[in-house]
């Protein structure tokens, strides 16, 4: 794998030289997103270890120009996936965090009211000049019409994340985070941008994406069911908890300093924990945190006191901690035996 990586990196740096000549990053992305294997290696070089399923999702998203709806328990790397994709493709990441009550004005665009007001004040004085020589009311109104709708033009518009993503010249990665937290209405608002990469603004018209439409990721924690209309427009990726092997590789990529034996032990321990009946089972992010903690404490091998002291890193409910506490020795003996 290391050899592959090196080869891949070499290829990438070579590409970058070419890119300067060509004068755009598009070729780079095309090459990278050309096959699932390339993508997987690319993610790995950015310290994001992913299954082939995840890489396939990104591959299809890029090739088919479809948004990806990512679901899964919290802490399995849904948001991270979007971030890493942006990093890998060297595209800007535009993020929209959803919450209850999020609406058009905060997601798509808003008028710059202050600027509009200021300009009206300024123009009031020049109004006389404009209307000079106009005979009668009709002519005056006609002249005013010539001003057109300048107050409602792009000059006076404040683009919010969704619109901003469409306006990016070279494309970007758009992350719509925790879409399940938003209202039903907001979901419907997303439909247009997700299927056609455009938004309609009554005063201006339809704004379409520039040359490269954004790569869109939506994440959801399943707090409520996403509507079928939205699901239908997206690729659906479900990221479950990783198996032992994958999790070890993830820890290796994220906390490379940790000794392999301890890494094996702590991953086994976490995997055992996930089988217990807990209020909130530890996710990958917790495993990584724990690995960092253990590293900081110069741990060589798991033992009962140490685990008991650091349990609050992986378990977030006192009830869970109490439950696990009773079984800590069995869990550790399982984790430490070969």
């Amino acid at each position, binding site marked *: 794998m290391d050899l592959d990586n090196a080869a891949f990196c070499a290829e990438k740096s070579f590409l970058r030289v070419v890119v300067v000549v060509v004068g755009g990053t598009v070729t780079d992305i095309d090459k990278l997103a050309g096959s699932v294997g390339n993508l997987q290696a690319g993610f790995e070089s950015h310290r994001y270890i992913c299954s082939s399923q995840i890489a396939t999702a990104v591959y299809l998203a890029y090739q088919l120009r479809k948004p990806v709806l990512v679901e899964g328990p919290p802490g399995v790397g849904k948001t991270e996936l979007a971030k890493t994709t942006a990093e890998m493709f060297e595209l800007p990441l535009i993020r929209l965090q959803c919450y209850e009550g999020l609406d058009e004005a905060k997601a798509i665009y808003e008028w710059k009211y202050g600027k509009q007001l200021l300009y009206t004040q300024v123009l009031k004085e020049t109004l006389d000049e404009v209307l000079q020589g106009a005979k009668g009311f009709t002519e005056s109104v006609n002249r005013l019409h010539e001003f057109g709708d300048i107050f409602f033009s792009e000059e006076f518009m404040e683009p919010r994340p969704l619109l901003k993503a469409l306006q990016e010249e070279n494309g970007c990665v758009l992350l719509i985070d925790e879409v399940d937290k938003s209202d039903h209405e907001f979901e419907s608002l997303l439909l247009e941008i997700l299927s056609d990469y455009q938004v309609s603004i009554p005063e201006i018209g339809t704004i379409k994406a520039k040359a490269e439409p954004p790569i869109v990721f939506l994440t959801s924690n399943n707090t409520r069911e996403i509507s079928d209309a939205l699901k*239908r427009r997206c690729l659906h990726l*479900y990221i479950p908890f990783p198996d032992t092997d994958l999790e070890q590789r993830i820890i290796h990529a994220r906390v490379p300093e940790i000794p392999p034996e301890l890494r094996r032990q702590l991953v086994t321990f976490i995997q055992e924990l996930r089988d217990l009946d807990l209020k909130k089972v530890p996710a990958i992010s917790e495993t990584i945190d724990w690995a960092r903690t253990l590293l900081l404490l110069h741990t060589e091998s798991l033992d009962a006191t140490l685990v008991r002291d650091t349990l609050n890193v992986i378990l977030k409910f006192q009830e869970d901690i109490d439950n696990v506490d009773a079984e800590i020795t069995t869990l550790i003996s399982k984790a430490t035996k070969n």
Partner: protein
Amino acid sequence: MDRTLTSFIAALRNADVRISTAETLDAMSAVELCGYRNREFLKDTLALVLPKTPDEKYTFDETFDQFFTFEDVKGESVVTELDGDGEEAEGEGGSGQGQGGAEGEGPGDRKGGGKKKKFSAFEELEVEEDLGTGEMAQPRSTLGKLLMQDSRVELTVNMAAAAKEVSLEEIQVFTQKGLYTRKIMEEMGLADLQQEISVVRQSPSIPDRRLGQELKKRREWLREQVRDYVEKQFLLHADATGKKLREELLRKVKLSNVEHRNFRLVQEVVFRMAKRLVALHSRRKKVFKRGQLHVSRTLRHNMSYDGSIFDLRWKSVKIDRPKVFAICDVSGSVANYARFMLMFLYSLEEVMPKVRSFAFSSDLAEVTDLFERNKLEDAIAKTLRDYSGGSTDYGQAFEDFRNKCLDEIDNRTTIIILGDARNNYGDPRTEILKEMYDRSKRLIWLNPESRNTWNVGDAEMRKYSAYVHQAEECNSLTHLERIVGNLLRTIQ
């Protein structure tokens, strides 16, 4: 190739994965991109495009594995009984070609012997004359040639083509399996093969007769294969049709007649109905969120318009969730109805306001806690176990209810009583029901018996119905769905 995909999608739909036409188109463009070469890649790809919930993904995995098994076998050419025979047979074909019916030499003998051993797995029904080993004649019919080629790939392709020809995907019930097996065999050229077998078996030439034996064995083997194939296709295409039929029936059947083995299925139906109701009613809530004018927010917001108020802001009212009290008779005769009503009410958690439930046969007890702490099925089982003894006493139950929580009933409360009103000639205590009726917003009585028996025997429905807002007959899932749907409409 598109046909493969569409029939796969049909199979998925059969397995209850919802796939729209748009998604089918997506799948096609995705498959165009990934091709059919790499099975894992194809699976990953389709898994992203077609199923859209974790449940559906699970079903998808199973269906995919079943559906694309032949694709899997394709790579290995020959498996199971014919395994290992492939190369040898090919060699034989090569050497045997020029020799025709000539008597075998050394190498031919060895191979023939090997073959005999390998095919010994087949039960020989009639005693065959021992022809020894040696050179065999060449088959003349198309199917015979195919069989003697030992090429599983070609056979499979042929089989699938024949299956398409006879529209195997239209298979409906399991009794058709035999019919389709025969149809496919015939389509593949069984008649010619039969003809050939009977001719060569009576032929004086020994190699011919050897061929006859061999062909017969292989014909049986082929029949086996075709039967397997039909079986698999039946599971893919027809199984769910039967299920749909069953579900349709279950919706209409009297709930007390639902057999125990069908409980799971009924539960699925209940959940699906509940999900639909949830989807229908979760949007409605929003309208009620708009309340009075929020003066300060409006002023603040409209400052940017030079103080002219034209964009109004509203106070969002916290919805005061109405309450539902469900009182269920769980005595033997009505227990099953109570089971499904509770199931229904609690699967509506998302849109249903807080439900408090009570169970009684003679004494009444609150079981809300049970439902909060346990899984739905467990809670129902426990309720029925603990409270279903004793003879029905509505009077006592109402008395208990009055003592426990009559004070908590206010003008936002809906009370649902489920029971047959058969009071064993006891005191009906209608005055308590009247009190409940006066205090609550709605009191609904659901009676599982049909309307014309409501007042027969010890049933007190006539007395009770004076003090309810609505009395309904309720004994099937369809009834239940309608009533709960109406309930949701009125209480929100």
